[in-house]
């Protein structure tokens, strides 16, 4: 009789622990994530992890580069500036990591070059360098001339947005992130590329997801 009680108790404990383990796991729709729905173990988080940024960048760049608009009419590279990338989620996110990766990938594609003269990545160096034209200290043949800065053709803007929802029985919650990027042709005002990469994460509703 005692043995039966012990077996039942241990089984219950093991089942209880197993259930807890499963419920605390966050499942991600991101195939690159170690917590993707196909992978049982691995680092899991409701937040945006490196694998999510990697995936969002890959999907965004693929969308842009595979578009016929990525080839500049008349040849050469598009000159691109960044506008604001808004983090409209409940997670503190360094959007610079995201924009740097996109810039690197698009530059490596051979079709785009980014400007630091305009947009949110503008540096003061460009205008400050022109101030050297008035300085007797500098060899004037080595200072940057006026009229040499290249104006951008395109502007990238975007946002990371989020939709949070809870299952009917309040046991599970879902956090859906949308990595939304658009590229506008500055001359025409037309949006020539647009990419929207969703990543959904599902897990226990025990705590808030941030």
């Amino acid at each position: 009789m005692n043995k039966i009680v012990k077996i039942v108790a241990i089984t219950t404990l093991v089942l209880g622990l197993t259930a807890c383990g499963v419920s605390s796991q966050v499942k991600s729709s991101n195939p690159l994530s170690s917590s993707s729905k196909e992978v049982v173990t691995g680092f899991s988080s409701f937040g945006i992890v490196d694998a999510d940024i990697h995936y969002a960048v890959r999907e965004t760049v693929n969308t842009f580069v595979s578009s016929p608009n990525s080839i500049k009419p008349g040849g050469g590279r598009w000159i691109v500036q960044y506008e604001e990338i808004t983090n409209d989620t409940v997670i503190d996110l360094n959007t610079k990591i995201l924009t740097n990766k996109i810039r690197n990938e698009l530059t490596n594609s051979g079709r785009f070059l980014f400007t630091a003269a305009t947009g949110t990545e503008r540096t003061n160096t460009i205008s400050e360098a022109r101030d050297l034209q008035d300085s007797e200290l500098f060899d004037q043949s080595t200072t940057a001339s006026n009229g040499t800065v290249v104006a951008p053709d395109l502007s990238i803007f975007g946002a990371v947005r989020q939709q949070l929802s809870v299952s009917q029985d309040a046991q599970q919650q879902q956090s859906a992130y949308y990595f939304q990027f658009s590229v506008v042709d500055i001359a025409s005002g037309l949006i020539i590329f647009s990419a929207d990469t969703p990543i959904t994460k599902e897990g226990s509703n025990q705590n808030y997801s941030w």
Partner: protein
Amino acid sequence: MRTKLNIIIQAASISSLCFFLGACVPGNIKLVADQHEQATLFGYDEAAALYRNKNGEPNYNSSDLYQLLLAGKSLHDAGYWNESNMAFQLAENQLLWKADKVDTANEALALVGTTLTNDAMSAYSGKIYEGVMVNYYQALNYLMLGDEDKALVRFNRLGERQSTASVQLRRYETALNNVKQESMNSNQTEVLGTSARQVRGEINSGLSGIPSSNKRSYIRNQSGDVLHAIFRSTNEKKGDDWQVPKLLQHARSNALDSDSRSLAVSIEDSLGHKNKKYTYVIYEDGTGPYVTENRIDLPIPSNGSEFIYFGVALPKFNKGQNSSYSFEVLGAKSRSVVTNINNMAGIEFQSSYNAKVDKALIAAFLKAIAQHEINKEFSDDDDPLVGILANVFTAVVAQELTKADVRAWTNLPNRIHMAVIQNENNSNVDIEIDDKNISVAINSNTNNIIYVRKARANGNVKAFVQTLPATSLARKIM
């Protein structure tokens, strides 16, 4: 004899444990509360100094939620926005639990676990409305710092908490009722029901401070919805103001009265006129509600028709205090109290009150039985001293184990007023609090927020002005 010796040793051990617990945990809580109360008498900077050293480093227990809430608000009141957010971030890490998931398993354990001790001995786990207010102040702090990126994240968290707060409150209430049904057998229910009926009036007095006609939706902080809407309409981000009508709809539908409904309409109107500029005034008035202990002598049936009286310690909700009798913004289009913390805190207090009463009654019942048994065991001892000692031991144990949890976030304001005024060509906004006039210089070409705090009737006023979009540190007025 051996049995009696064991009982004496056990009684002594329990007493020692109770003294230890009594001396450490509730003592610390009392110390924190007393020190805080003393410091706030002198002013905002003095209260903040309790939680930051001269180098601006944190001076609080980073794992004590109760202290973190007091610290975060004190630092906020003094205008230490960054330091306030550090404390609130630590507080928020402990307020991530969701009440719609505080189901019977967890809540029952928490309740049963302290049935024989008292709530004040357990770590402070916070309230639903406190999570709402933490995110509200974090967002306001970042707005004052001119960091709209982080303010947006906090407003989103606030929105998420606000949207689930009343649902969570309902589920929390259900979970607590389930615990009651699971934790008492029918005999206990009957006995305790008889006892409770005799002191029903005293039990109900614990709720007398809660505003009448309170409702669940008041757990939503209306000033949070309004400020969130103002932020989303005026910030530098593009295309993220789609939530504004929904936020203002919440503010209208949960308005405390017709004045606060009119204010929501005026603010919506102001946000619709992008070519006109407005100044929004937020005034935090007074100190919020607090909790005291309400000790009741509960009659518990003993032998037949006899009763023994046993002390029960229940929490009692007390209304907060206003610091002013009037607040005016000269020329304001609209002005009203938007949030009453008594409603927010009161509705959550009310939701859990019956469960707390039941728990206290069960604890009293069990302690009465234990005390009765121990006393009976020693009453026929040859040495009368043994009986006396046993009585003293059990009485001390019962006394130490009977304490209500009176922890509450007491430095919240009592009420939050808001006003909206069109800038036109005005370079100043004149605010009158009682007989005091505060003239605030504004940039009439931008939208602005003026944040005013007056905690005590005879205390000072703090005021700051921030332009919207917020791109740099808010300017201190006084």
